[in-house]
């Protein structure tokens, strides 16, 4: 029993880190431009597909990871400029709907282009190591490390680079950022691109664990939203903590119920958060 719990702990952390990668982009976007990006799951899905194609073409998983991130980041920038920038300043409902429309288009495009049959991405690192009574795949640890590394890189970027400080300033006060000469329109486009790129990277990393198909974004969008709300919208550290927390809870729950039902755990966490501490469970109380 203890072994099962420990294994689920590791599983929970692995999935949690990927979820954190997806959710970070979402919360970054929301924090800076109040946009709830419904199309985020589709960016995740397209990243996985671009990964599939690149892998098939070049045979290199790592190249696939890089290409997918860059391509989808560019796509994200394009989506922002054409669909979201015109809606700046309007009621937030409009952006929810616009991104919903975008997700419809992207999902169906993937269905048309790639068909309904799931594809597979080969793991770059095969082999397992004995963990208690299981043979635990090395690859899962690789994903966890990579996700953590990417998130760490993001944190460093935000803290120390020029654009990072611009992003933080714009998130805090968009108007004053402009008055300081920060090119806010460019910053917003870049943030959306970063969010999209991170979603794509998660898609490629997660690909080997599940099949890649056009509907894979739906589940993730929902979970990512829950994570973002529980973590505190716009709060990067909170999202990461929430992602791991929720994934752990789900992993433990799946010891007793089926995975399809385990998701109810995250729903319950969300509802409790909204009732008790709506600004986010992991947001430090302001002094």
């Amino acid at each position, binding site marked *: 029993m203890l072994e099962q719990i420990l294994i689920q702990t590791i599983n929970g952390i692995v999935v949690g880190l990927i979820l954190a990668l997806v959710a970070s982009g979402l919360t970054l976007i929301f924090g800076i431009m109040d946009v*709830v990006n419904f199309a985020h799951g589709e960016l995740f899905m397209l990243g996985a597909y671009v990964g599939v194609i690149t892998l098939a073409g070049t045979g290199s998983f790592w190249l696939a990871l890089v290409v997918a991130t860059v391509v989808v980041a560019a796509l994200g920038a394009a989506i922002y400029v054409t669909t979201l920038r015109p809606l700046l300043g309007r009621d937030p409902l409009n952006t929810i709907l616009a991104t919903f429309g975008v997700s*419809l288009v992207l999902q169906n495009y993937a269905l048309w282009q790639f068909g309904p049959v799931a594809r597979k991405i080969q793991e770059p690192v095969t082999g397992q190591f004995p963990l208690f009574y299981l043979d635990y795949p090395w690859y899962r640890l690789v994903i966890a490390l990579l996700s953590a590394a990417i998130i760490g890189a993001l944190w460093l970027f935000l803290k120390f680079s020029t654009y990072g400080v611009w992003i933080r300033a714009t998130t805090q006060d968009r108007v004053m950022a402009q008055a300081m000469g920060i090119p806010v329109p460019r910053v917003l486009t870049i943030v959306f691109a970063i969010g999209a790129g991170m979603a794509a990277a998660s898609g490629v990393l997660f690909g080997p664990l599940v099949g890649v198909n056009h509907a894979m974004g739906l589940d993730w969008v929902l979970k990512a939203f*829950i994570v973002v709300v529980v973590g505190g919208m716009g709060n990067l550290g909170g999202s990461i903590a929430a992602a791991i927390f929720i994934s752990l809870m789900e992993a433990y729950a799946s010891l007793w119920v089926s995975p399809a039902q385990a998701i109810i755990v995250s729903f319950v966490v969300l509802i409790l958060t909204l009732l008790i501490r*709506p600004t986010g469970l992991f947001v430090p109380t302001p002094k």
Partner: protein
Amino acid sequence: MTRRHTLVFWTGFCVVVALLVVAPFALPEFWRRFLTEILIWGLLAMSSDILIGYTGMVSFGHSAFFGLGMYGAAAALLTSRPPSLWLAFFYGLLAAAAVAAFVAYFSTRLRDIYFAITTLIFSQIFYVIIFTWTDVTGGENGLNFSRPALAIPGLFSLPFTTLTLYWFVLAVLTVSYLVLRRITHSPFGMVLQSMRENEARTRAIGYPVERYKIVAVMLSGLFAGLAGVLYAIQNRFAAPDFVFFLVSGEVVIYNVMGGIGTLVGPIVGAATFLLLREGLSRLFPYLASVAAEQGIALPGLAEFPHLIPLGIIFIVIVIFMPQGLLGFARRWLNR
């Protein structure tokens, strides 16, 4: 409302209803059923307008109300011998009301985006429960049942035909519209709209905003459940797909496309969307076959998903016609 306005309105109303009554005579079977479905979705969209358009609360939970109405009706139709129409309504509305009460509670505690996301999650909670509780709900496959007759026990029993069912649904929609119109034009409706404009001020004036919200959610949920019951009766099955949050998203799309805050707008939006979808889904295979006849091979055209141009049209409407089709028409007419 000025007398002239009232006159224009009622004239228009009677004309539209009359047209709808005779429409099925001019249409083949498939389109009669299609029109019935449009009316049902229109009812669902209209119910959602109470929250989105009048109270200013965006809800992605209508698939839950709709779905529970559907499953409630299913329960009645599977357990009553002979299947009872009125029991279907009763169970369906009861189920929808129960969910609505639940959502109503949260509506008083949460605002804006948090409320929207919570309602979305609720749809999913019900989806998961229905999907996995196979014994009771039939799980993935849903439930099949037979259509009840229009009956008053002991007096008469008239099985529905496509035509009579259409008129029945039209009658329900028309009555619902009139009822909702009465309500939104009443002092109650005025308070809702004032809450949409500025909730803090409405509360400051002294209105118990929480209570109004609860009533608005219950009202909206009941009519959505009504649509669910009608859908169950028409199609004779209930499936978890209808509880999935995407359905709620589509409902919001109908609202925005048609124009929120108008009651009629969402119906127009639903009709437009569904007609466009049907049309586009036939267009591409048609184009592909025309091209094939000319000897041009356009691989993939036949399967081109009609939802792509539909999605793009929707995005364009959101960006350029924020008042929806009705608002656009209104501005154009006023020029």
